[in-house]
């Protein structure tokens, strides 16, 4: 596309000096005149190039490069504004227009969107942290020390990941609180609430699996306390109701499966790492896709809707 833009000017102007040079080598007498013609030609080309640059800077949106990236014209028309959202892969989850009261902060508190933003931040900082971390009992703790003292901005990176995780848990809970208070789980959004509950659980699991990774006393004992609950699982845990009767021991019950052993050790660290960095993010992302898609398909954001009066309740249809 870029070549097309220069096509009108460049080949034509490039031709002139080349012709002059070719003739100049033949006859020495015309040399002075030819040289002047070449210089004049070069000056004209330069002026033209400057003119083109000026135009490009003045109106970059008219270049073919720009058009090729953005696909549609963006002028000051309502149609363009709508297309700007609809034809953009990152923005196309939005509708072109929204209820004018829905953009007010007081209705949604912005919690769902901010949660997603914090999630993106966590994926970003988490990926960077993965460059400096080995999920192995021998070096995991040392990697954190190294990260904090030697890696440029390593401490900031780890802090952002840690506090971002806490912030995400708080925001998810507040988002749920808001959705409940506005009754947004009611028809037709029942299923999206279910997806949201699963996302809440996945958020807590993400945070919990990350807790073990620094391999320090805090994470170790928190995860020990947490997974000790699993041994008391009814039927499936060796200390749970009816577990021993079903042949559960510390070496074959559900806790063993979670930890990859009977104690929190190297296998548990590796499992926490894989759940934390690969498995749960993929599962959570899949549910997020469904969650956001359903928000649109269920008619966009739930309100603020006009209030309904008690006298307007319709009788329930019996099946």
């Amino acid at each position, binding site marked *: 596309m870029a070549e097309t833009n220069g096509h009108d000017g460049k080949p034509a102007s490039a031709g002139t000096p080349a012709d002059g040079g070719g003739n100049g080598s033949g006859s020495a007498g015309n040399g002075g005149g030819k040289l002047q013609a070449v210089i004049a030609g070069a000056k004209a080309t330069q002026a033209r190039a400057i003119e083109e640059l000026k135009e490009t800077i003045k109106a970059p949106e008219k270049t073919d490069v720009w058009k090729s990236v953005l696909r549609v014209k963006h002028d000051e028309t309502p149609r363009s504004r709508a297309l700007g*959202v609809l034809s953009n892969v990152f923005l196309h989850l939005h*509708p072109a*227009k*929204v209820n*004018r009261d829905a*953009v*007010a902060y007081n209705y949604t*508190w*912005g919690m769902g*969107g*901010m949660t997603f933003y914090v999630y993106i*931040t966590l994926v970003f900082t988490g990926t960077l942290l993965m460059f400096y971390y080995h999920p192995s009992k021998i070096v995991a703790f040392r990697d954190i020390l190294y990260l*904090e003292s030697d890696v440029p901005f390593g401490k*900031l990176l*780890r*802090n*952002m990941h*840690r*506090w971002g995780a*806490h*912030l995400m848990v708080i925001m998810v*809970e*507040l988002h749920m*609180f808001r959705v*409940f*208070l*506005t*009754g947004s789980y*009611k028809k037709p959004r029942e299923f999206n609430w279910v997806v949201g*509950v699963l996302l809440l*659980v996945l958020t*807590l699991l993400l*945070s*919990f699996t990350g807790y073990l990774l620094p*391999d*320090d*006393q*805090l*994470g*170790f*004992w*928190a995860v020990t306390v*947490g997974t000790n*609950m699993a041994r008391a*699982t*009814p039927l499936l845990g060796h*200390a*749970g*109701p009816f577990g021993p*009767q079903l042949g559960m021991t510390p070496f074959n019950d559900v806790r063993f499966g979670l930890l990859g052993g009977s*104690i*929190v050790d190297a296998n548990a660290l590796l499992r926490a790492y894989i759940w934390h960095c690969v498995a749960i993010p993929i599962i959570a992302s899949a549910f997020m896709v469904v969650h956001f898609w359903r928000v649109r398909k269920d008619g966009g954001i739930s*309100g*603020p809707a*006009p*209030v*309904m*009066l*008690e006298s307007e309740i*319709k009788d329930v249809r019996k099946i």
Partner: protein
Amino acid sequence: MDLHQLWTILSLPDNVPIVLLLFVVPFYTWYGLRQAFANDRLIEQLESDPAMAKTHHRKVQPYKPGWAREVHVWPYLLRIEFLAAIIVTVILMVWSITLNAPLEEPSNPTLTMNPSKAPWYFLGLQEMLVYFDPWMAGVVMPSLIIVGLMVIPYIDTNPLGNGYYTYKQRKFSILTFIFGFIVLWVSMIVIGTLIRGPGWMWFWPGTTWDHNRLIFEVNRDLPDIFGITGRLGKIIFGAIVVGLYLGAAGVLIHKLITKTAFNRKIYKRMSVLQYVVMQTFLVIMLALPVKILVRLMFRIKYIWVTPWFNI
């Protein structure tokens, strides 16, 4: 008053989210309920004036006849999203620059931390361990919380309050959720973080965490109080008491569901299945505060003692 101890607890990096929670949860509760009450006043006005109900746009937001009902996402929504992203980034940056993430000594299975606490968002469950055995507090209750949250849309047959804040039209569901979220979830987290000290003992904020403190609590089982000693006797007695609780709680919840004329109207819309599911979850939810009270007031550890499980 040991202010230093209080500061040590509050300033622990991983406890900062709880301190944040102490501010944001009350704020947003107030923020949501304030809008709910504003809508309730509007609803009252519209109900008393049918002519107004026909012409009013039925929102508390300002409205003029010439205004468009919808606005463009670009720029009116996107600029807010952009601004929110910047603000969250700034908050996260400032928080991360001023406060370091905790890192303690390398993990050591031979050196137990006291108190050894779960991550803060699970402290409600850990606090529950005081009142229930691990299979109940760590497995059954969390599973029931998750499933119970999921079934909410399917058992709430009240069609009002869909997409706007209201308290008057959804008193029962809002009070139930606030009870579950704030009283049972958030406040248990706060107790687990700020009050539980070494040995998971209760230390009021401001008292010193004494690692040598001993509490001589005589926790008894309910059958022992009644002098029942046989294994079979305990099983039958416990089953009867738990059955009595389930019955009493069921009746209480039924009374609440059918208390007002409006509640009865909503109750009539429920199918039998919806009613049974709702009763099941509410009765189990109510068991938690009841067990807490029984434990704290009468020092009773177990109600139902069997060879396989204790409740």
